[in-house]
């Protein structure tokens, strides 16, 4: 490997082997998600598991494919705490969503 290549490798932090491994992990997690959907879990349990797995997948994509793991930490701090905070604020509505089915008059 030439010095130039090593330098680039150093700047960009990950090798093609790492990216291929991440790709395999992402495919495996997708497989787990499809399996979960066929084992008949209660709606909220399944929702929590699926969203949990998707957050892990998102973190892998953002960290490695989108390269954020190798960027300066200040970039992460500027972009993500705000995003996560806004998304968590939207969770406020979810309590109502689970309450509504119980408020239906018995038919």
């Amino acid at each position, binding site marked *: 490997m030439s010095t130039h290549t090593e*330098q680039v490798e150093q700047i960009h932090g990950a090798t093609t082997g790492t990216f291929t491994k991440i790709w395999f992990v992402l495919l495996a997690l997708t497989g787990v998600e499809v399996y979960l959907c066929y084992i008949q879990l209660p709606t909220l349990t399944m929702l929590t598991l699926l969203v949990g797995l998707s957050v892990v997948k*998102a973190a892998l994509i953002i960290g490695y494919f989108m390269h954020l793991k190798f960027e300066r930490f200040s970039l992460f701090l500027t972009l993500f705490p705000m995003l996560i905070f806004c998304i968590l604020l939207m969770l406020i509505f979810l309590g109502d969503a689970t309450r509504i089915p119980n408020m239906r008059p018995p038919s």
Partner: protein
Amino acid sequence: MSSHVTAAAASAWDGGASPYATNSKKFGMWLFIISDALTFSALLFAYTYSRVSNPDWPKPFDFSPSIIFSSVMTFCLLSSSLTMVMAVHSMNHGNRKSTVKWILATMLGGGAFVVLHATEWMRLINLEHVTASGNPFGVPLFGGTFFAITGLHMTHVIIGVIYLGIICQGVGRGKFKAEDVEVSGLYWHFVDLVWMFVFPLVYLMSARVG
């Protein structure tokens, strides 16, 4: 680039020349991605709210073909993300020919996704009679939310394929720098990222089981 990094390294938070040690194109794309992520999360929250609050929510997605199709679509997008990473990698090494090949592979993955998704839409419209305003399952919101979310995502994929096409022909003709390919890669990975949430929340949560 390395001198650029060292110049800012001393004073990351003092408003140095480059506090993020990144170029402005890339930072601009990140800002766009964050705002677009909020749009998609609002839509997905609205969908999940309707889904959870309604015990009669329709489950029109059979294992074959819908779940198989959407799993293959997930595979296409994930693989195209890998080829995009390879394109950025080749461009960083100054290899324009292989960059063009990897970008073309990425566009192929995106194209396959769009074709499969369009087939899936036509199946829902023609066979299950789901439209944006009504469906035979008695939950009119299903069609509206489904087509809005997947439609917006498909628009992003189509725009991504066009964007990559422009970058690809430019790279082939010796235009554009490594950072331009990296910025287009960021957009493409974001499209992939959004699908990682649309697939479980819209498809898997409404799979016809048993």
